C-alpha cells in the first residue's frame, strides 16, 4: 500500500472513530447551538468527601448579569438534587461542591436567558453532563467493570516489550555496529 493511501486511511479512521463524551470537554445545550467547556478540579477526578470545583466556560457573548439566572445543579443516582452556589465572571461559571460519596452524578447548568421562550428562542439553556466519582468516601460500592480486552492487551504488549528488550540486550554489539549512517 502506498504511503499516500496509508495516510488517507489514517485520516479516515480518525474521522470515523466513535466519540466518547467526557469531563473537561465541550458539551452543548439541547439544541446544539451553544457550547460550554466543563472542567472539574482536582484534575477532572473529584474526591468524594473533599471540596472540588466545577467550572463552565459558556460560549455566549455574555452570561446574564443577574446571578440568580444561572443555576448549577448536581443530582445523585437516587435522584436527589443539590443547587450549588455559583460565581459568574464574564462567560465563566464556577461552583464549589463536595460530592458526598462515590457514585455517578449528573451536573446540570441551567441559564435563564430571559427570552420569551417561544419560537426559536428558548428561555432556558441547559447543559448536562454525567460525572463518575471514583475516589473518596464510599457509601454504596460502585460496579467495577472488567476490561478483559485491556488485560489481554497489557499482557501481550508487555510481553512483546520484554522480548524486544531481551533481543536488544543480547544483540546490542551487532546493532551498534550496523546502526549508523
Amino acid at each position, binding site marked *: 500500500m502506498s504511503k499516500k493511501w496509508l495516510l488517507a486511511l489514517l485520516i479516515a479512521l480518525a474521522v470515523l472513530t466513535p466519540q466518547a463524551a*467526557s469531563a473537561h470537554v465541550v458539551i452543548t445545550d439541547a439544541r446544539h447551538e451553544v457550547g460550554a467547556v466543563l472542567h472539574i478540579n482536582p484534575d*477532572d477526578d473529584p474526591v468524594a468527601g473533599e471540596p472540588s470545583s466545577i467550572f463552565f466556560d459558556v460560549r455566549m457573548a455574555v452570561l446574564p448579569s443577574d*446571578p440568580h439566572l444561572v443555576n448549577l445543579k448536581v443530582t445523585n443516582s437516587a435522584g436527589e438534587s443539590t*443547587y450549588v452556589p*455559583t460565581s459568574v465572571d464574564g462567560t465563566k461559571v464556577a461552583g464549589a461542591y463536595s460530592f458526598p460519596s462515590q457514585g455517578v452524578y449528573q451536573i446540570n447548568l441551567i441559564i435563564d436567558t430571559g427570552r420569551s421562550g417561544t419560537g426559536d428562542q428558548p428561555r432556558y439553556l441547559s447543559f448536562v453532563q454525567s460525572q463518575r466519582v471514583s475516589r473518596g468516601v464510599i457509601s454504596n460500592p460502585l460496579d467495577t467493570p472488567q476490561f478483559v480486552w*485491556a488485560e489481554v492487551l497489557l499482557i501481550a504488549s508487555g510481553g512483546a516489550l520484554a522480548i524486544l*528488550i531481551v533481543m536488544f540486550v543480547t544483540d546490542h554489539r551487532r546493532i*551498534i555496529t550496523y*546502526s549508523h549512517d
Partner: protein
Amino acid sequence: MKQTAHPWRLASLTQNVRFYILASSILVSLIVLAWLRIQIVADQLSVIRLEQVYGFLSTIYLYVALMISPLLMLPLREGVKRQLKFSRRAIGVSAAYFALLHSGIALWGQIGGLDKLAFLPAKLVWSLSAGGVALVVLLIMAATSFDKVVRGMTFRWWKWLQRFGYIAALMTVLHVWLIGTHLAYSWAQWMGVIALSLLFGFESFRIARSLTRQLHTSRIVLVAMCLLLWAGSTAALVMMPRYLKNYHSDQHSGGGQVHGGAGHE
C-alpha cells in the same frame, strides 16, 4: 570495510536500533492504553488521562530529539555520537506518532469532533491551533524520514526541513502552556522551566559557536553571545505567564458575583 545501515537491505530489521525505538514506542502506547483502561473505571477520565499521557510522551520524545544536536558537542566517544545521531530520526518519528494519538483522542474523544471547535473559547482555539501546527510539522518530518526521501530531497534540503523541528517545539510549548491542566501547578511550571532552560543553554552555545566561527571572533565574544542568548530565551520563557495566561489559571483564580444555591430537592 564500512558497514552502513540500510534497513531495507539488511537481513533483519533487528540489527537496526531505529526498529527498536519505533517498535518500543508502539508497544508503550498499547501498554499505556491498556493500563489506563484497567486503572480508571470512568470512561470520561480514562480518555482524558490517555490524551494527557500521550501528549506528555510526545513532548518527551521531541525534547530528546532536540537535545541530541547539542549533546553531540560534548566530548563523547565517537561510537556514542554515531548512535545518538542515528537514533534521532526514530525518536522524532515517535514524537510524531504520540502527537498524532494525542491529537486524535483530544479532538474526537474530548472535544467531540471538528464541528465542536466552534464552541470553544478563544484561548483554547489558539492553543489547539498551535498544537495543530506542531502536529503538521512533526508529521511532515516523519513522512520525510525515509532514506529514499532524504536521497530524493538531497541531504541539504532535507536538513533545512529538519530546522522546522524548532518551530514544532515552540508551538508545542505554547500549546502546553495555554491549555495544559497540570501547568497550572507551580511544580510542573518549574520542571518545564528547568528542562527548557537546559535546552536553551545548549542551543545558545551551539548558535554562538557557529556564529563566532563564521565571523572569526574571539572566545570572549562567544561566551558573551552564548550568555546573552541563554538569558534572553530563559527570560522570555519565565516571563511568559505575564503576557499569556494559562487557561486553567483563569479558573483557579475564581472571582465574580456569588449566588447562593436554592438548596436541595
